[in-house]
């Protein structure tokens, strides 16, 4: 249901496969949209799959794009890594028109990827996938000590936090003093 292209202007996306027409009533052909992430790789996604994303669905529900217009205007998500967007697109396609299962075991185990996915999914407002991801994040600290949690999630200690805050204040003070001095120099 989806295809991936290298760049918006290079190869044209594959035509959507259409289901055989029923004898009773001809089916309305499914509409497709195009999205790309930071890597500019364009993903072709059906409107049905995009229904999972409240953000995109809200946008396109009354749009009435033709195939050409959709192709010419891929939705850019420059703040989402290409591989993460690919995961999101794959998930939306896999769960298109299906009830979501109580658990999803195909989520990334690697911390950075999982956090990136959480943020992307939150941004795209995909509620069910966000629930799975948050469960997976919660599982990461199961049975760990506070020190281990701090290490895994890179949580600064209160002392480190305070030191960073002091440093930031100091820097801001210096910058302000520099600006004042520069302004005084200009005035002379």
């Amino acid at each position, binding site marked *: 249901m989806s295809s991936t292209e290298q760049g918006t202007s290079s190869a044209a996306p594959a035509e959507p496969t259409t289901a055989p027409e029923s004898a009773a009533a001809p089916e309305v052909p499914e509409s497709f949209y195009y999205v790309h992430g930071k890597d500019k790789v364009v993903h072709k996604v059906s409107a049905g799959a995009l229904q999972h994303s409240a953000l995109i669905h809200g*946008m396109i529900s009354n749009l009435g794009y033709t195939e050409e217009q959709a192709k010419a205007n891929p939705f850019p998500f420059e703040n989402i890594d290409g591989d993460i967007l690919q995961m999101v697109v794959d998930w939306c396609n896999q769960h298109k028109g299906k009830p979501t299962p109580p658990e999803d075991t195909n989520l990334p185990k690697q911390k950075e990827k999982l956090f990136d996915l959480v943020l992307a999914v939150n941004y795209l407002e995909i509620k069910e996938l966000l629930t799975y991801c*948050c469960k997976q994040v919660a599982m990461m600290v199961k049975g760990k000590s506070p020190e281990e949690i701090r290490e895994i999630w890179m*949580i600064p200690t209160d002392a480190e936090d305070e030191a960073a805050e002091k440093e930031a204040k100091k820097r801001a003070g210096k910058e302000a003093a520099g600006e004042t001095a520069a302004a005084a120099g200009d005035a002379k």
Partner: protein
Amino acid sequence: MSSDLKIVTEMTKKWSIGPIYDTNWCDMPAEIKLECIGKMALNERLLLRCTAKAERSLVDSQKIKFNKGLIRKSCGDLVFLLSRDDKYTFAKRSKGINEAFELIKYIGKIGVFENLEISFGYLFTDTKKLITDLGLFTVKNIELTYCNIDNMIDVLRKVKNDVESIKMGGDTMTAEKLAEILEISHVQNVPYWHILNYEQTDCLYKVAQMWIDRNSKIGSTFQASVYQLGSFEKFSRHFNDRDRLVSMNEKRVRIRTNKPDHHILLERGFEEDGEIHLYGQYFRLMVISAELKESEYNDNCKEWIYKINPEIYKEYDSASPYSYDEYYEGFGWGSFVY
């Protein structure tokens, strides 16, 4: 169509300038952190809140649902057993009274309980501390047994108003203490409450009188098991003197309230062979519709007696959802920080 295209172009431009996030927990927005914390068990939440001040305030801002909670005195300490989604998730034995109190306070603050059972025994003698320092408990069904009566009343006062059932052990309850309990607003409004092992004979007519004074709703139910003889007779006499009797026989007394469409029905529990329970008498008091016919009375008192004393009918025991053995066996005991 061209205006649609313009809107989309504008929106997608905005999307494109969104921030590229880092991949650490600390860079996650608070709402996502809260969503993740919401999926954690109490153990993990307690451990996470030990990592830094910011995490502590986030964890503490998030409520946690428990379907069962048991706080029970055991050898001078308190034992906490909490379960979530029918899975045992938290077990702790407090070290000393101060830790016990702090943990009650914390669990009371963040917990949303379906069922909570508290048996403090006589552990807390400083009742002022309970009144002043405890927050309000959010609980649907609360059971208070084997507690100093003053502690019991203090905890009852600290329960939020939407409680649906209150179960109490009343072996240390005097008439004065019952009067204090009847003054508590959620006791007055609770759909179901009971006193197990009450040692006086005044609770039935006092509860009925409180319902009359407050025009309580149809369905309000109070049950009691009483060791002393005479509660049934005292109830009948009290309302006969006030010209409220509608009907009376050895099993039931029905009285009028101030609302013409509301009656109150007192029923006495009987053995299957029709005998009265001698070792502890069982009573049920209900606000009923004045329309209810005598032919519609239910003579099967086994079910409601079981509700007040599950141990009385052995055949029901295997189905009991509140078995202590089940509670204790299911837990792994660990050490926890909070």
